[in-house]
């Protein structure tokens, strides 16, 4: 098992990638905590999966933008799990809109959830990691922030920010033995990828060597590897999982 005796916290645990992260991390041996915003039913299902994998699970209903809620959540995880070895910043949103229709509030919401949320959770967790001089952080970005693709600009901008955040944080935390990486998934057949308009979908498929959209588990199993000690020599990287574009 890749993550035996580790403890992990995953944001956006009920999303398509989030649910697979919880499933695979617990399968690989990690006690797994996650937060979610909307679906209590989904959260319960995921908890059951974690328990079926014989690991401890914790679920919190709180937004990544609610700093007080996050602090409470982290405290609770520490109390139950003893420590946090791994943080996966996975919570994120998208919105299909061309530039003319993106209004200030759309921009703000996109930046808030995808960038500020990542910052708030990371800051709270890193505090505990620095104290223990160990930890792994993995941020879920997107190919949208890297390549010449027709994607909503506010989404692309937010996902590009993930890359900048990742590398500078890796530098800053290196002296505490904390690794920080990012994964940039391509188009998946679930989550934000489900309702990609036909035009963009077809264009992606035209250039994708795999010739199909990816699956959330293909991102999640790679994430488990990156967060494991086997990947100890991988740091400050933005790893692309896009089927070869």
């Amino acid at each position, binding site marked *: 098992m890749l993550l035996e005796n580790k403890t992990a916290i995953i944001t956006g645990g009920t999303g398509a990638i989030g649910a697979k992260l919880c499933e695979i991390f617990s399968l690989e041996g990690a006690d797994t905590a996650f937060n979610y915003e909307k679906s209590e039913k989904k959260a319960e299902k995921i908890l059951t999966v974690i328990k079926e994998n014989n690991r401890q699970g914790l679920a919190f209903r709180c937004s990544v933008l609610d700093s007080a809620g996050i602090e409470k959540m982290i405290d609770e995880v520490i109390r139950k799990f003893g420590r946090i070895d791994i943080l996966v910043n996975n919570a994120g949103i998208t919105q299909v809109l061309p530039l003319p229709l993106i209004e200030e509030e759309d921009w703000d919401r996109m930046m808030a959830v995808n960038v500020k949320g990542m910052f708030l959770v990371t800051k709270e967790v890193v505090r505990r990691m620095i104290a223990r001089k160990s930890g792994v952080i993995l941020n879920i970005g997107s190919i949208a922030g890297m390549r010449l693709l027709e994607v909503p600009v506010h989404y692309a901008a937010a996902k590009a920010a993930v890359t900048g955040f990742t590398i500078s944080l890796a530098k800053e935390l290196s002296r505490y033995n904390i690794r920080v990486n990012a994964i940039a998934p391509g188009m998946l057949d679930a989550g934000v990828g489900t309702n990609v308009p*036909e035009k963009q979908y077809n264009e992606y498929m035209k250039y994708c060597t795999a010739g199909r959209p990816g699956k959330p588990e293909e991102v999640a199993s790679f994430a488990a590897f990156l967060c494991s000690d086997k990947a100890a020599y991988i740091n400050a990287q933005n790893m692309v999982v896009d089927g070869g574009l």
Partner: protein
Amino acid sequence: MKKDAKRKRDYIYYDFTRSMCRRCGKIIDAQIIFRDGKVFLRSICPQHGASEALIAANIDWYLKVINTRQATDRPGKFSKEISEGCPYDCGLCTWHEKACNLPIISITNVCNLKCPICFTYNRDDPEYFMPVEEFKQVIDWLTASEKSIDLINITGGEPTLHPELFKIIELCRRKEIGRVTLNSNGLKLAEDEDFVKKLAGYGVYVILSFNTFNRDIAKKMHGADVLKKKLDALKNLEKYGVQTTLMNVSVKDLNDKEIGKVIDYALKKDFIRSVTIQNMTYTGFAGGRFTPRKHLPIDEVIDNIVKRSATVADRAHHTIPAKLQNLHKKTRFSPDNSIEHREKRLTHDDFVPLPGSHPLCYSVCYIFRDGDYTFPLKRLFPGDEYYEILGKKYLVHPGENFQRILSDKINEIWARKDSYPESERILKMMKNMIGKLYPTGEHLSPFERQKRAEKFIKIIYIHAYMDEDTFDLSRVNRCSVLVPGIDKTYIPVCTYNLFYREKDKRFRKAGERGIR
């Protein structure tokens, strides 16, 4: 014949086609001619002489539409080689130009009304109800020949009387089929609320025949005082949110001037998706005897709508601010006749031929709608893009092409806001629509997306069926409204009504001659 040759030529010859003789039923030569600003189909039977029928009320309209861009859409499968020629090789023969966009399946000959305007041949002895197994065969054939089909229309007789209707509807739940539309005169829908609820549960779209708000006219058209029933049916359909089309048979000098009222009603109601106006066709057991026989061409229907439908615009724009009102008083425009106000009404230009059919068969007007705000789509897309949006099918497909045209338009409106009246409101509407069409984290099939797009659109279709007088082979050849058979055939519905239904033992007794 001689007499006809000697006749003074008081017309302008325009074109040549093939038609049929009302008396002997033979396919005969015909001319399209212009006289007194109007367009006529003039057919000449060697035995029974010449006859004329109005096919357009205005030459300019006719010349404008007759060569509009047509979408070719070859049928998926042909069943017959050419041997006797059109329409005797119907099957489809290899000559047919259009795939099936609108399959029409009659599941019974039984009806609980005897409408004098009914244009089908419909015996009711013995009673015929299509067996479920037979229906399945038809559906199998449909899905084998056309891979994906937007809708299946179930009709009759009165199809709600079929004892196994829901089994039939169940059979249409396949991934290749977008939806079922069910014709009805509304009696059952008025009387049986649970039935309507069940239809809603199955996601069936209802096409309710609705011709008038006037009781006397209703009596003349349906042979009974059915207005109350029709209104009750509407109430039930609205209650259960059944997506509804009002099917309006328009009869010249009877109910044709009421069409504005029907459209205004439809535009106000969320559950009503479209209005289909069908001109009166003088064929079938009842319709063939209906008098007076006055043909009502598409452009005359458009004229009736334009003159009589109140408004299509946002109410907010109708209240002219006090300051402006004074201005209006000072100018020669009264507020009511102001340019702004006039533009809110539908105009002739808001209607175009449906690209998937002959211009004399179908005309369509799309109206964007977001809450209280409405806007005729053609005004946003005055050029060829409009035809691309409409596509070659009966319903719009919000696919790649649609998306490209829409995003070009959004950019253009945004970049040139000043030249687009109400640009802010239109952009807001587009944003709402995109949010509904591409919700994140929720998977929509193309058919589901199509249904969501339709929530933002009201459609007025004008469908001019043909009878013996207006029958024109050049129209049949491009018809996509087809009757699929159990014998792996398709027959264009006008041809079916005029040539084939009478041979169909289910709907007509042997030797029975109808009106001919």
